[in-house]
């Protein structure tokens, strides 16, 4: 069980003064630990980055979708 938990989390190092500042900042907030705060902030930053997205449409695809949307009255 412990091994499985270890696989889910990893340790990172941040400067001690920064860690102290964060600890002070999260006092009285919903964050229960330094880790939960850092995880939250990193998730926020990562979500702002665009990932590679496959091109969803070929020309033929586009034609088909446009025709269906026109037929259904969604496009003029």
């Amino acid at each position, binding site marked *: 069980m412990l091994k499985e938990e270890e696989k*889910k989390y990893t340790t990172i190092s941040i400067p001690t003064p920064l860690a102290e500042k964060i600890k002070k900042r999260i006092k009285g907030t919903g964050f229960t630990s330094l880790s939960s705060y850092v995880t939250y902030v990193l998730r926020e930053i990562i979500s702002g980055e665009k990932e590679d*997205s496959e091109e969803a449409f070929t020309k033929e695809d586009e034609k088909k979708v446009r025709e269906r949307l026109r037929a259904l009255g969604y496009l003029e």
Partner: protein
Amino acid sequence: MIQPHGGKLINKKIKNKKIDLKNLQKFEINTNTAEDILNIANGVFSPLQGFLCKNDLENVLKEKRLENDIPWTIPILLDFDKNQIKNIKEGDTILLTNNETGVKSLLELEEIYSYDKKKLAQSIFGTDDPKHPGVANIYNMKEKLLAGEITLIDSKPREFDKYNLTPKETRFLFKEKGWKEIVAFQTRNPPHIGHEYVQKTALTFVDGIFINPIIGKKKTGDFTDEVILASYETLIKHYYLKQRAVLSILRTSMKYAGPREAIHHAIMRKNFGCTHFIVGRDHAGVGNYYGPYDAHEIFSEFPDLGIVPVFFRSFYRCIKCGGVVNEKICPHDQQYHINFSGKKIRELLVNGQIPPEDMMRKEVSETILRFKKPFVE
């Protein structure tokens, strides 16, 4: 255009239809599961490519995230009786079929596993009370879960298909309309004036509104799907700018999981290309199982959700203000407030009466009353 959840819109529809199905073991599934397959195949459930494996399920229950850390709150599961699946094993490919939807889908069976129903119910619904409809559904599930990627081979045309746009189609449509910011509105009822107020308030700040009623299994006494769609058509025709509103259905079952389901609803709308999602009071709630604003608070756990929740608390008509207001903008006492009672509107309609126009648009009421049987019997 907003990125799909997980970064890529999933398409699990078969590319080469010439496939030999003769030697595959075939299993009939229920319509809800078939609709899950359609939603996976069309990208509504992106990034899911199939039914959850055990690691993903445990992570969803504990962390509200898939194993790869992507937010996900409602597990999509495939259950079977152990006797039904005694002749199949992990690594097999099986055929899943459903008569009502015409769904035929391959499942590459990655894992067969057991689960704890009570834990599943408690984690998703915050209760293991069998009176909760979602919990009751879990207690009725079979004892084994099957996991693996699906590939949709076929499905048949169904009622309301003309309103049934896929994420690929809505994304194309929004782009064609030049909409950059789109707010999604989830509903299960015909619109009253309060709904219209919420929708138009949100629409004021974005480019378009995506009205997305959930269609499917209903309780006795609920409005029929036909009535919901016809009433929205009427409202849009008379009271919306046509170029600012899109009506399209979503076929999925309600889980009544309150806060967790609010996140799930937001994720699906993100996949349709929406940037904002309206969350009302007691969203996806039932009975008194959730606090009225639990479904608002849960969003603070997901800084990486990628869709902006638009929270609405209570709204009502204020006699003094002379319009629809909310608690942030109206200074008057409760005695001046008239709540939009769905129950009251329903009672009037059941008796063939038109509700007052300050509750429901006359055109909408008339549309509903044109139906001989507007309610599920």
